[in-house]
């Protein structure tokens, strides 16, 4: 029963949702839209559980002064502060001048941009480490990477002999082998996704239920 009911529900709801693409009747779409709204409500309710989990995991570590408890304390204080500022601001919390908007403009935006900016440094270190011509495949990858990067930089176009051909070569690499590989990945991934979805709907896959 404990295994059968979820499988039956998965099958019925899954088949119903798939039907929307084949049954154009407007009443059918009303019901599928309703199901999707139920899903959104469940996801929103899960945020409360997420909040409880955050506190449950981190607060005991702060109270027991486990290693790095200071970072967890800052996280909990930031969580509480933003929550209070959001509730206090209400509908108008995003109006300029409110505490909530100040937190967004002067804390969230710079931190978010900083984390994204880290990518520039990490790409440099990853490229330095990974792009070594150890074998033929790696050499082809290395050559393509250098060609594309060089073609994107104005200095590449001013190189003697090859400067005129670099942009054309780069465009060829981006337009032909790159797109061919991406399309192959898209098609393969799409088929894999369909197969996985069908396996879950038909109850062939049960590991997400602990079976």
């Amino acid at each position, binding site marked *: 029963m404990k295994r059968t009911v979820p499988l039956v529900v998965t099958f019925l709801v899954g088949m119903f949702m798939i039907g929307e693409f084949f049954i154009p009747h407007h009443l059918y779409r009303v019901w599928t839209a309703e199901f999707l709204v139920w899903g959104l409500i469940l996801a929103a309710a899960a945020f409360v559980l997420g909040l409880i989990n955050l506190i449950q995991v981190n607060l005991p570590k702060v109270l027991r002064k486990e290693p790095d408890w200071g970072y967890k304390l800052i996280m909990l204080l930031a969580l509480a502060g933003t929550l209070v500022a959001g509730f206090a601001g209400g509908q108008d919390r995003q109006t300029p001048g409110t505490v909530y908007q100040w937190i967004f403009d002067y804390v969230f935006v710079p931190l978010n941009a900083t984390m994204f900016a880290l990518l520039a440094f*990490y790409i440099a270190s990853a490229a330095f480490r990974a792009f070594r011509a150890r074998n033929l495949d790696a050499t082809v990858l290395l050559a393509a990477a250098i060609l594309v990067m060089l073609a994107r930089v104005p200095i590449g176009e001013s190189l003697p002999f090859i400067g005129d051909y670099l942009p054309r070569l780069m465009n060829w690499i981006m337009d032909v082998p790159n797109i061919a590989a991406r399309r192959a990945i898209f098609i393969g991934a799409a088929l894999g996704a369909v*197969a996985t979805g069908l396996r879950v709907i038909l109850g062939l896959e049960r590991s997400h239920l602990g079976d």
Partner: protein
Amino acid sequence: MGKPVLYVPGIDELQDIQTIASMLILGQVAKTVAEYQSEIIVSCCIPIVREVADEVVKAGFYQAGHPDAYHPGNTRFISSEQFAFCAGTNGIMLREKPATNIYLGRFFAESLILAETGYINRSIQIAGTAEATQLPFFVAACDYTLIGEELFAVSAYLSRDPRLVSSLKASDYVKVFCVACVLLGTALASIGNPIMIDLFTIGE
């Protein structure tokens, strides 16, 4: 030995097929981790994914016969904001020092930050995603990368269930059909016959 495994099921919602595929694999990974009496830390970006992951991990430990080894606090919701989640997961990596990092699911810009931090820790890293834009970063920074459809094939491969493996065979046949359509369509279009193009055109 003795070090935990870190599992990151991507940052997208539960209804995304890559997250579902990740949950399917998580069950088997949790069971194996339990059999070796180690720990698994699951770092989640979406609260509802955290709830499902928690149930999956618990079931895995129960199936392996080690229900006492299951720690509910090891399946954690970090943040629903992409880079806050990334920062939190990096913190877990640097503090808990997992031996293995497994990134399976849908990732975006945080993929390289996660993988590079894992590399600093000298963890073994296994990644899998169908996001073509993030694959180069995983390939550069991880030890093993599952590309596209391989992510969806893993659960069938690990379980060896004939019914699941047969679905892989079926998708291979469909791929052959797609290739045949592409070749036929190219040949027909080259001689001026748009029948295959018209057949596969959608919309008005």
